């Protein structure tokens, strides 16, 4: 029974991890940028949802489209105005600049909203139901359902639309994409915007489950790394698979080994995967 409960917990949270990491995988796959500011984008999503809930009473799930649009705009601007300027720079420079952007975002958030703990807590936040000895909080189920919907929508976008095709073309072969007239700068900006939008959605839901602070994103960037690498940096399905794997790994480790071990295990897993199979579970070969 405990095993089943842990399994369910792991899957429900794993879905959220997956959505969190899709954006990072996307940005890496297309732009070859490792986005250290990813967590800050998640944090912004959480705050936006919190404020729309607190000030105007908007339900966190219903206000998702707004959060997504706002974060898309933020991501688009960041890429257009800053990151497009250093896309061809050496790796350590792109890492550094995304770190700088993270620091700026976090500190602006601190100044604007202070470090006080917040939480988006609608009335139904503790409601739960029991089935067969398992207790499942409604919010976790809805979060999982939302992540499924978002994943499907996103995959449809990438596979079935012109924009999606353009993005994938740019990812695969930059020069050819340019030659066929794809406005690469624009595509880059849209891609980053999409990644940010997904991160924002993840943040919106995170803020319903857990407390919100400006430094909420730091640990989540690392988690997103683990998930994205596990599944294969650059593959979207990989992020989802990776998310579920991490969710389950954390749940089982916390329950059966000890609550202080999940992080050690997940980072250890990260290093191990990189050494053994850097392209992750679903990735294509290009690691060494």
């Amino acid at each position, binding site marked *: 029974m405990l095993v089943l409960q842990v399994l369910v917990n792991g899957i429900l*949270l794993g879905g959220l991890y997956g959505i969190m990491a899709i954006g990072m995988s996307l940005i890496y796959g297309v732009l070859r940028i490792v986005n250290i500011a990813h967590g800050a984008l998640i944090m912004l999503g959480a705050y936006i949802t919190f404020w729309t809930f607190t000030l105007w009473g908007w339900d966190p799930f219903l206000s998702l489209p707004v959060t997504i649009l706002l974060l898309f705009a933020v991501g688009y601007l960041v890429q257009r105005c800053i990151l497009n300027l250093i896309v061809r720079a050496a790796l350590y420079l792109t890492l550094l600049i995304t770190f700088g952007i993270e620091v700026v975002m976090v500190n602006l958030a601190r100044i604007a909203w202070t470090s*006080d703990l917040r939480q988006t807590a609608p009335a139904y*936040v503790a409601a739960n139901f029991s089935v067969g000895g398992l207790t499942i909080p409604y919010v976790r189920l809805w979060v999982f359902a939302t992540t499924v919907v978002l994943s499907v929508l996103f995959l449809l976008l990438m596979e079935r639309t012109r924009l999606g095709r353009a993005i994938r073309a740019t990812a695969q072969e930059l020069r050819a994409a340019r030659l066929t007239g794809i406005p690469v700068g624009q595509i880059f900006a849209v891609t980053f915007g999409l990644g940010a939008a997904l991160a924002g959605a993840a943040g919106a839901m995170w803020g319903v489950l*857990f*407390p919100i602070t400006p*430094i909420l994103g730091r640990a989540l960037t690392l988690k997103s790394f683990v998930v994205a690498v596990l599944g294969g940096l650059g593959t979207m399905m990989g992020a989802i698979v990776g998310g579920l794997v991490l969710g389950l790994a954390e749940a089982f480790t916390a*329950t059966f080994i000890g*609550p202080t071990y999940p992080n050690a295990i997940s980072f250890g897993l990260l290093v191990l995967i990189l050494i053994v199979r850097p392209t992750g579970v679903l990735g294509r070969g290009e690691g060494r």
Partner: protein
Amino acid sequence: MKRRSCWWLASMVLAVAAILAGGIAAGAAEEIVLGAAVSQTGNYAREGKFYVDAYQITIDAINRAGGVKVGGKAYKLALKLYDDQSDPNLSVRLYTRLVTSDRVNFLLGPYSSGITIPASAVAEKNEIPMVQGGGASGKIFDRGYKYIFGTLPKAEFYLQAAVEVAVKLNPPVKTAALLYSNEAFDRSVGEGTRQWLKEHKIEKVYDEEYQPATQDFTSILAVIKSKNPDLILMAGHEQGCLNFIRQAQAADVNPKMWVFTVGPPTADFRKTLGKAAEHVYGITPWLEEMEIGGEIFRSAGEFGKQFHERFGYEADYHVASGAADVLIYKFAIEKANSLDPKKVRDAIASLDVETMYGRVKFEPTGQIAMGQVLIQVQDGKVVPIYVGGKFVAKPVYPMPKWSQRK
């Protein structure tokens, strides 16, 4: 061209050097400066604010009442404050700066044992007294330091009253789950609690540690639920306890009694949780209703009222402890009639005085000897249940299940 950039570089270096030189300050002559680095941002920001406000209100009150008299002269107290961002490493550097650069007279403490342990090492190294009210772990005081004093009772004893009470209730508690954070204070509480559980023959069905930064308690709760303990004891700081209670509600975990080391006596905690805070037990060495008092603040009630008026929230034991620290300096400096760190240190060590925080008397280790009150949240209010080995009110026990509450 060559010269221009050389000059440019030289002037940059000079500018930086000038800024640095300017960074060496000297204290004003007629003041006694108390220095502290407190968590105003970061994990402990909530609790840190209590200390900042407490220090401020007490210093102002002392100054209004004539200041501190040394050698016939009246000195005003001043506060030099830094933000340690809940980072022990930064705290050490800031305390070093307070001592070497700002040259403050004496030191007040940070919040949390984890930060107090290293910060106090700086004070001891420089032989300057530090009176702190934010660190309760015995580990702060078992290093043989002479200059460190603490006004929070020993962490190891925090949950003793709760365990004592648990076996006296009807039906008595038989099984307990112990959960504590991987941090100095909470590990100390955990160590002590194991002992009390053994003494009172309560079966420990769960004994685990969690990372301080943990947000997600679902796995922990799943295991605890499967063991179905009568009593849950949690040692953590405010944020962790808050999360735990919320998620326990969502996971439908229903112990008969649960106790948290930080949170329940604090208004902020109760307000944030709302109804979920009902029936929660907590511990505090101080309540506004207590009939205690001394100089400057004639009673706990008077202190609480003044504090609420000025800062807009209710004082709790953190606030009272911080205020007491400043009061202790006034009494000790006047007793020693000197500003010499060693003489003041000796005066603090031999102090025995009544204050609005209670009786201040330090054990040889430097930690205060003070009892705690077990409280329960009833109708949103803090109700003392068990003081000095006796029941003073009836607790609501067993706690009604979540599904039966409204």
